[in-house]
């Protein structure tokens, strides 16, 4: 790992559709076509009903902050300039929770339950990170 760069997502065969959708500025999650539920992390089977019937569907991108932290310690040199920065978990309207970060809000205004929506941060040609911002 390059110590001077921010780490990039580790793209695997299983999560590739997620990251390819992010590049197109779409949030997509695996859904079971048998029980119609969305789930995370990716799996070739539905973790709820065990059917191997998975389809990547676009989701609303809306959710609420289910928890958050504010990082004050420098672990990665590449994040030093961002300190203190937030990291959050967002519970999407479709159910699954994603880890991400919030933009467009001061750290001391973040609260559990805050309504948020997805925005896309293009890090490079290949990688786009989903982040979230407060919903009006």
């Amino acid at each position, binding site marked *: 790992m390059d110590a001077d760069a921010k780490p990039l997502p580790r793209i695997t065969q299983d999560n590739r559709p997620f990251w390819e959708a992010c590049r197109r500025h779409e949030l997509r999650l695996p859904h079971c076509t048998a029980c119609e539920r969305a789930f995370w992390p990716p799996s070739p089977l539905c973790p709820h009903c065990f059917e191997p019937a998975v389809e990547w569907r676009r989701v609303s991108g809306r959710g609420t902050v289910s928890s958050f932290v504010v990082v*004050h310690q420098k672990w990665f040199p590449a994040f030093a300039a961002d300190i203190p920065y937030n990291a959050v978990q967002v519970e999407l309207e479709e159910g699954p929770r994603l880890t991400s*970060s919030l933009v467009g809000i001061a750290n001391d205004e973040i609260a559990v339950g805050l309504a948020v929506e997805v925005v896309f941060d293009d890090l490079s040609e290949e990688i786009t990170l989903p982040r979230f911002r407060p919903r009006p």
Partner: protein
Amino acid sequence: MVPMVSRLRGSDEVYLCGRVMPVSFKDTAAIAGIGLSRLGRHLPESQLELAASAFRQALDDAGLSRDDVDGLSVNFGWPLGLDYDRIAESFGLDIRYVNQTWTHGRFVTMSLQNAAMAVSAGLADVVACVTAASFTRAREILGGPGDMEGYREEGGTHGENPPYGLTAPAGGAALAMRRYMALYGATAEQLATVAITLRSHALLNPNAIQKTPLTLADYLASRLVVAPLRLFDCCLVSDGAAVVLVTSAERARDLKQPPVYISGMQGLRSGRDEFIFAPPGLGINQQGPGRVTPKPRDQDVYAMAGIDRGEIAALYTYDAFTPLVLFVLERFGFAQPGEAAAWIQDGRIALGGELPVNTSGGLHSEAHVSGWNSIVEIVRQLRGQAGPRQIGGAEFLQWATVWGDSVVFRR
């Protein structure tokens, strides 16, 4: 010879290698020897030197020789600790049973349980559980760019997510504590009681690294690491080694020290309701929401030991971060969901209280030997060798983690 069989449920015997073996491992294995190197920060000794010191002490403690050890169980190898093969070559051991788990605190219990099962199944006579850590030389690995463990997790059950700068285990514990505070109204002042209590225990332990009392004011003034966690919510980053020798109960009875029996065990839990740093139901990662009280299968350790939870004289846990103490109390039913922060007040988890926790000071204030320093303390307590920290008349002590595994020990 077939050890005593405890009949717990249904058919509990199997036919193995021409002998009838008990399926239950209740009291079939015991800890016969313990050794702890010196503990400190930035120690000059290598991991091998620290391990050698602890190993020799453990053999001497048990009255065993090097040649008696034919098994190794290691929960903490490269890149943070010593691997089993290096230990065996360096110490000139002749090993016929090995267990090594990936470098992670979550496998402490499994490593001990594997040792107990190996000696009970006749796969080894004496298994040495060896842990050597020099965390003060491993800062790059602990949440930094060298932390492949954090990178592996990628938002997994430990909570790391490096692209968002959530690179260290403290982040997962902080996510859990923030939600716990939001759901149940727990406060920093309540959480401080964990840190202050563990420190008070360390002050009674001459081996402990922390030597000065911790006040609420000190705690609240300490710097934020990953809010809501402060410096004193995080355990020590330290160096040291521990060795625990496990043998059959039968053999342990003939050795130098009184045996400390492994009476009950239950394993590491995994599934969508599990997040390493949170009790089920808290709502981190994909955990279902809602308070969860322990189900019977989450209390197997007591059933196997044949006791009620109320017979546990003290609880020992992997206190890498102070919230883990709250969560393990709820996970095992000592406190109701959402109530542990209030439950621990007024000396309840201090020596002399209803349920002392980590009486040597734990990872928080004694040293971070991946929890094995607390296993050593359990043995001292049950032998009556804990000096000013001795819990009078303790018969059953419990090791348990927030990730759900546990061992009940009996004197």
